């Protein structure tokens, strides 16, 4: 007679898997990617493809030849890192090769050196991005101007004929008069990295993730809320020339709050911890934007909060049943 399986209870499992979660995150990033391609043309698509391919390849190589473990590239996590990295760089021609270096740092140092998925203390895509920002400051802050109309730039790029500044760059240099309109900021008609231009596209993806219960509202709301309130206070007492609405609609706050700060691996596990984490991210972002030498601070803010996540996890325990 055939032997019976006698593994312990429970004998049924939900159909959740890491793979499903990762591919759903990828799906949630698609609207943002489409808007980026619409505004920045083929360059944006190429940057994304190269970044994703490089991340997957580096992970495969490291797992096969250095760690000598079964490959996990199918779980989609390297694709998430690749996509997020691409959405964090400008769509210029230099990026077509620079992003490969970013991918190597993101996957090689940010993720695999700690043991791979689940063990990295920092968001790998941000590790790659910050490395690139510090190493190639000029290339990382040279922004292509978005097409005048949707899809007008979907053509083979010849040269980066025009370069435009990001709203935050404009503010740092020229003051508030030269800013784009709120509507342009919502649909993404402004300079910036691939993924930080369209608030609406980001929110579509974020709502999908909320419905799928892959992220909860705590980190994004705390992050964006803190940034809004803090910048309002600074605007009100004259310490800053950026109104709160512009603050949250420009730069990487939306992308960071919805997709990067909510990374399961590197953010706290309890709701209370997540609120504190989001608050810290929002506060640090505005501090760096207002008093730092960089116009943008989202990446640094999230990485700094990543580093205190274990501490937050220690301090914020779930409420026990009868305590």
């Amino acid at each position, binding site marked *: 007679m*055939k032997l*019976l*399986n*006698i*593994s*312990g*209870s*429970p*004998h*049924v*499992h*939900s159909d*959740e*898997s*890491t793979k*499903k*979660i990762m591919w759903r995150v990828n799906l949630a990033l698609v609207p943002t990617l489409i808007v980026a391609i619409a505004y920045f043309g083929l360059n944006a698509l190429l940057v994304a493809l190269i970044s994703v391919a490089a991340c997957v390849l580096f992970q495969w190589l490291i797992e096969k030849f250095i760690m000598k473990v079964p490959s*996990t590239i199918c*779980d989609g996590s390297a694709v998430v890192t690749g996509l997020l990295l691409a959405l964090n760089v400008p769509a210029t021609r230099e990026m077509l090769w620079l992003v490969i270096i970013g991918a190597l740092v993101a996957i090689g140092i940010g993720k695999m050196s700690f043991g*791979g*998925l*689940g*063990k990295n203390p920092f968001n790998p895509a941000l590790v790659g991005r910050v490395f690139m920002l510090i190493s190639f400051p000029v290339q990382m802050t040279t922004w292509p101007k978005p097409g005048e109309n949707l899809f007008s730039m979907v053509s083979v790029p010849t040269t980066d004929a025009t370069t435009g500044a990001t709203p935050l760059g404009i503010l740092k240099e020229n003051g508030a008069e030269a800013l784009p309109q709120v509507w342009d900021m919502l649909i993404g008609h402004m300079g910036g990295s691939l993924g930080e231009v369209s608030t609406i596209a980001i929110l579509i993806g974020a709502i999908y993730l909320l419905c799928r219960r892959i992220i909860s509202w705590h980190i994004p709301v705390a992050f964006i809320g803190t940034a809004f309130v803090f910048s309002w206070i600074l605007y009100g007492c004259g310490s800053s020339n950026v109104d709160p609405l512009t603050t949250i609609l420009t730069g990487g706050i939306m992308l960071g709050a919805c997709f990067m700060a909510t990374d*399961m*691996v590197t953010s706290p*596990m*309890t709701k209370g911890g997540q609120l504190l984490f989001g608050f810290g991210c929002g506060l640090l972002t505005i501090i760096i934007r207002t008093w730092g030498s960089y116009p943008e601070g989202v990446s640094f803010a999230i990485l700094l909060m990543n580093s205190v996540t274990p501490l937050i996890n220690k301090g914020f*325990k*779930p*409420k*026990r*049943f*009868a*305590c």
Partner: protein
Amino acid sequence: MKTFAMGGIHPEENKISTSAAIEQMPLPKQVVVLMNQHLGAPATPVVAKGDKVKVGQLIGKAEAFMCANVHSPVSGTVNKVDVCKDPFGMAKPAIYIDVEGDEWEESIDRRPEIKRECNLEPKQIVDKLKEMGIVGLGGATFPAHIKYSIPEGKKAEYLIINAVECEPYLTSDHRVMLEHAEEICIGISILRKALGVPNAYVGIENNKPDCIAKMRETATKFEGIIVEPLKMKYPQGAEKQLINAITGRKVPSGKLPIDVGCVVSNVGTTFAVYEAVQKNKPLIENILTVTGKHLPSQHNYQVRIGISYADIIKQAMGELPATTGKVISGGPMMGKAMCNLDAPTVKGASSVLVIDEDEATRARETACIRCGKCMQACPMGLEPYLFSSLVRNGRIEEAGEHNILDCIECGCCFFSCPANKPLLDEIRLGKNKMRAILAAKKK
């Protein structure tokens, strides 16, 4: 609608045997009656080889404090008094009886009429429960006479009847409620009297509207029986969660329900209480669901204890399907996979669940991504992912400090884990080691 405060999951219900009316399982040639069918010490055999026994005759006497009487489920001759392996391969003292006819003890009232009046005093009711070997049929098989002897200084305020049946697949409680609602209500009234509480609350999940309607209708004829529909969520049938859902009270860590003024009884037990107190019938039968997605037919059986699982399977489906991966005693969330189907059923056995190979095989474990789903699912507010790594690294006492012993082993964490980590396996290991550490410290 009420439910418990924290955690919980929604597994697929799969209540496919709901419409199967209770059938009588035919008697086999031989039954094997285990001497520990309950929580606590085994009963002492009071018959010897060659003795003739009748249905309902005492064959195992409760001598220890935590113990329950065992009665013969059949009439016939004692073949031997020996040991027998239980469904999980553990040898237990047992009495083998060769079945001859079906002759019952004269004291047992076998007439079909329902007997409503009960004139016994609380103390007499408890003695009756002890005499008839009644144990809790919800899973823990806790001897009933101990539960209804309220210790000095404690006071029962609530009697809660657990008719939740939150485990997927199981339908035995469902069928008993539909077919024996009146007897159940009489049983509840008897327990209410034994405890001296004003009201009994019957908790039923809202996925059983027919049971809620039937019990509500029947309860109108009785005093102090309140049917409480509950919002579906697993593990609502866990004692602490059910108390929380119905009363809002929380049983503290390491305490018993009576410490918050509650006594919880399974609905199947109340039927056994009715039969014991009103009809003088000892606990010799279970209602048992035989189910599985791939079985040709679904059944609910009334089964004498001591009939082997192999006999039940033979009656229900002839042979196990070729693709069978697991045969489980109990539900898919907390039941145990059996390795010895020749073993006899015992008091409290609720089901034979047959699961196909592909469902029985666990998916490969991947890395923890700290999603926190295990923590959100935990109805006790614990941190399963943390226990997993602490136990793997041998840091048992640290796991103890994080209340590992509060785990009720409901399986919500493992069910929810996208990385397929065997969280509950590790927690069970950790709990056992933690108990050993505590026991060593006491000495």
